[in-house]
C-alpha cells in the first residue's frame, strides 16, 4: 500500500501564496461587487461609446469606431456647454473654497455656540437637491418670487432676473450655499488639528493675527485645501441636477432646456442619451469629460510640490 505521502499532490502552496489566497478570499465579496458593479459597467460604457446603440436596436448594434469622438469638436452645443463648465467651475470652486475656509476659520475662533453654528451651516447640505431647487425657484422667480417682491416694494416694477439673465450667478450662489456645510466641517477639522502652540510661539515672536494666518495657518492647511480643491473641481465639472431643476420646466420630462448660461455639459450628455436615445454619443461625451477631469487632476497633483505643505519639507 502506497504511503500517504506518495499520493499527496506534488505542488504545494507557499506560505506567501496561501496568505494571498486568504486575503483575496476575505475581500472577495467586495472584489466581486467591484468587478460586477464597477468594472463591468465601465467596460460596457466604453464599448457603448463605439457603437450605434439607441436602446431599441438590440438586434442591429454596429461598431462605429471613433465616429462619436470625432463628432464632438464639430458639435457646437457640446463645445459651448463644455466651455460653460469651465466658466462655472472657475466661478464656483474659488467662491466655495474661500467662503468655506473663512467661515471655518471664524468658527474655529468662536467657542460659544460653535455646535449651533456648525449645525446651521451644515443644514443645507442635507436637504435633497430637488427641494433646494424648488425652494430657490420659488424665491427667485421674476414675477412672484419673494425676493423680487421685496425688490419691487423698494422700487416698483424692478426685477432682478435671477433665473434667466443671472442664472449662472444664481446657480453658483445656491450651489455654494448647499456645499458650505461640507466645506466648513472639513476645514474646521483641519484647523483644530493645528497646534495652538505654533500660534502662541508666533505671537511671542511678534506676529499679528494676519501674519499668523498667512505664514502658519494657511500653509499648514494646504493639504486640506488641496483635497477640497480637487473634490470641488470634480464636483463642479460634473454638475447636472441643480441647473436642470432650475430650468423653466423644473427638469420635468426633459420638456425644456435649462437657461443657456447654465446649460452645462452633463445636461447636454444626458439629453443625448435620454431624449435622443443616442447612447453611443452620450457615453462618448461622458468619457471625454472623464479624460479632461483626469488631466486636470494630474496637473493639480503635479502642482502640489510647489504649494502644498508636507511634513517632509
Amino acid at each position, binding site marked *: 500500500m502506497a504511503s500517504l505521502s506518495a499520493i499527496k499532490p506534488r505542488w504545494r502552496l507557499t506560505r506567501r501564496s496561501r496568505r494571498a489566497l486568504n486575503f483575496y478570499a476575505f475581500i472577495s465579496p467586495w472584489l466581486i461587487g467591484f468587478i460586477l458593479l464597477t468594472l463591468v459597467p465601465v467596460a460596457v460604457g466604453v464599448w457603448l461609446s463605439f457603437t450605434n446603440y439607441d436602446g431599441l436596436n438590440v438586434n442591429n448594434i454596429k461598431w462605429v469606431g471613433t465616429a462619436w469622438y470625432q463628432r464632438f469638436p464639430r458639435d457646437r452645443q457640446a463645445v459651448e456647454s463644455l466651455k460653460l463648465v469651465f466658466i462655472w467651475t472657475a466661478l464656483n470652486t474659488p467662491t466655495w473654497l474661500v467662503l468655506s475656509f473663512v467661515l471655518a476659520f471664524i468658527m474655529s475662533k468662536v467657542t460659544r455656540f460653535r455646535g449651533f453654528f456648525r449645525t446651521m451651516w451644515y443644514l443645507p447640505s442635507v436637504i435633497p437637491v430637488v427641494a433646494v431647487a424648488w425652494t430657490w425657484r420659488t424665491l427667485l422667480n421674476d414675477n412672484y418670487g419673494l425676493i423680487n417682491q421685496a425688490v419691487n416694494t423698494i422700487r*416698483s416694477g424692478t426685477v432682478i432676473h435671477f433665473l434667466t439673465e443671472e442664472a449662472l450667478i444664481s446657480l453658483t450662489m445656491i450651489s455654494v450655499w448647499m456645499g458650505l456645510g461640507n466645506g466648513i466641517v472639513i476645514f474646521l477639522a483641519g484647523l483644530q488639528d493645528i497646534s495652538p502652540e505654533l500660534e502662541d510661539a508666533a505671537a511671542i515672536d511678534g506676529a499679528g493675527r494676519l501674519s499668523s494666518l498667512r505664514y502658519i495657518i494657511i500653509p499648514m492647511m494646504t493639504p486640506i485645501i488641496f483635497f477640497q480643491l480637487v473634490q470641488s473641481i470634480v464636483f463642479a465639472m460634473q454638475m447636472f441636477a441643480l441647473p436642470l431643476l432650475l430650468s423653466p420646466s423644473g427638469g420635468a420630462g426633459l420638456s425644456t432646456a435649462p437657461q443657456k448660461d447654465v446649460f452645462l455639459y452633463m445636461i447636454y450628455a444626458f439629453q443625448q442619451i435620454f431624449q435622443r436615445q443616442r447612447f453611443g454619443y452620450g457615453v462618448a461625451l461622458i468619457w471625454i469629460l472623464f479624460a479632461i477631469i483626469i488631466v486636470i487632476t494630474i496637473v493639480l497633483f503635479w502642482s502640489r510640490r510647489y504649494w502644498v505643505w508636507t511634513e517632509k519639507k
Partner: protein
Amino acid sequence: MEKKTAKRELSRRDFLRLAGAGASGTLLSVAGLPALAQDSPTAGEASIVMMYHSNEISDGEIEQFNNDNEGITLTRIDTDITRFFAMLAAGTAPHLLRTQAPDIPQYFARDVMLNLQPYFEASGALDFDDLAAPNDYYKVVSPTEIGQGDIYGMAKDWAPDGFMWLHTGLLEAAGIALPDPATPLSEEEVAAMALEVTQKEGDRTLVTGFNTHTGFIDRFWMQMALMDGGSLFSDDFSQANVVGNEAVVDAISWFHDMMANGSMNSPLNPSVSWFGPDYANGQLAMVYTGYWFSGQLRGMATNPEEPIIGESMEAGHYQMHPMFTWKGVRKNLCVTAAGAIVTNPSFREAGADDNDAAWAAFEWFMAGAPAHGRAASGWGLPALKSLNHLIPDDTAFDQQTLAVVNAEFEHSTDVLGFNPNLAGGEPMVPGATYLNNVEAALTGELSFDDMLQLIEDETNFAIEEGMFNI
C-alpha cells in the same frame, strides 16, 4: 413587415444577456440568496408584467384582475424607458408597455410589438367599430404608413390635444369680450388676445397671456403644417423640411412671436412651476392643451389647501374652447394617444409563450373595470366610443367641457405621421433643438433663420442616424 430572424452566432445581444445572467447569478450566489424560483410561475401559470404609471392603474384593480383570472398573475412596474431598454436588451421585456403615438412607427420598424389583429378579431370585449379615432395610431401597414392595417395596440384614453382653456376672470378684467365656446377663435385672435391680456408692471409680468406644454411643441407644428397642407417630413420620412417650408415656418413663428413679445412663457419669462397652477391661480390667461386638463382642474379645485381655485371653478372662470383655426382650417388632433402595446415575445424570456395571458390583461385594461374608471374620471375621453356615456357631466364645468368636446369629435379624426427614424420623446428632436436654442434666438444671439437651419440640420442628422440604426 418581415420578421427579423434571430442570429445564430453569439451576437452582442447574446453577450449582454450572458453577462447579465452571469452577473446576476454570481451576485445571488455571493449574497447567499435563494434562487428566484419562488417568484416564477408554476406550470400552467402565466406571470404578466405591465410597465405602466402607478396613477394609471391601481394596486386594487390589479389585485381584482388576479383574483378573477386564475392562472395569470399580473404585476406592474413603473414606466421607465431606460429600464425598458435594459429589459429589451436582456430579453426580459415587460409584456405590456405604456406607449404614445410617436413611439409606434419606431417600435414597428424595430419589431418590438406583437400583432394584435387576430386577438382583436376574436375578442368579445373589443370591437373595431367601437374604437375611437386615435386608436388608428396603433394601426400599421409599414413604419411610414400609420392609420390603417393591422392593429398593434390601443389608446387607453385620448383627447383632442389642442383645446383653448380661457380664464374668463382675467379676460374680463382686461376688458376683453368673452368669445363664444361654440365657435373657434382664429390664430390671429388668440395671439392678439394673449398680448392684450398680458399685464406688466415694469419688468414684472403679472399676467401672462398664453402657454402650452412645450414638450409637444413639435407635434403642434406638425399638426399646424398638416392643416396648412404641408408636412415637417418628406413623404418617406427620410428628410425634415424646415427652411423655406412655409407651412412649418409659420407654425414655428406663431409660438416664437408670442414668446418674443412676452405674451407667452419662455426661457426669458419662465413660469414659477408649470402652466397648470399658473392658470388655476389666475396668473395665466390662456392654455393650449388637451381635455385631460379638465381632470387636473377638478383635482385642484377640490384641494382644501387651494381655496382660490375652488372659488374660481365655482365662478366659472375656467372655460374650455375649441382649438383655434389655423389659416381658416379647423382641426384638433390627438397627438399623444397614450396607450399600450404587447411586446414581441422574441424580446421576452426565451420567447415566452404567454401571449394569450398578456392579451387577457390587455383586454381587461382596455375594456374592463380600469377603462370604465378612466372614462368616469374626466382625465381623458374613453378609447371605446361605447363608454362615452361615462364622461363626467354633473357640474356646470363638466357640462361646458363636454359640450365643447362633443362638437370637436368630428375634427379629431386624422392621425399625424410620426417619423419612424426619430425617438418619440417629449419633445422629439425638432422640438428639443428649438428649446435648446430658443433663448439665444430671443436674445438675438442667434437669428431666427439660423435657428430654423439648426432645427433642420439636427433633425436630418438624427433621421440619418435612425435609418442607420434600424
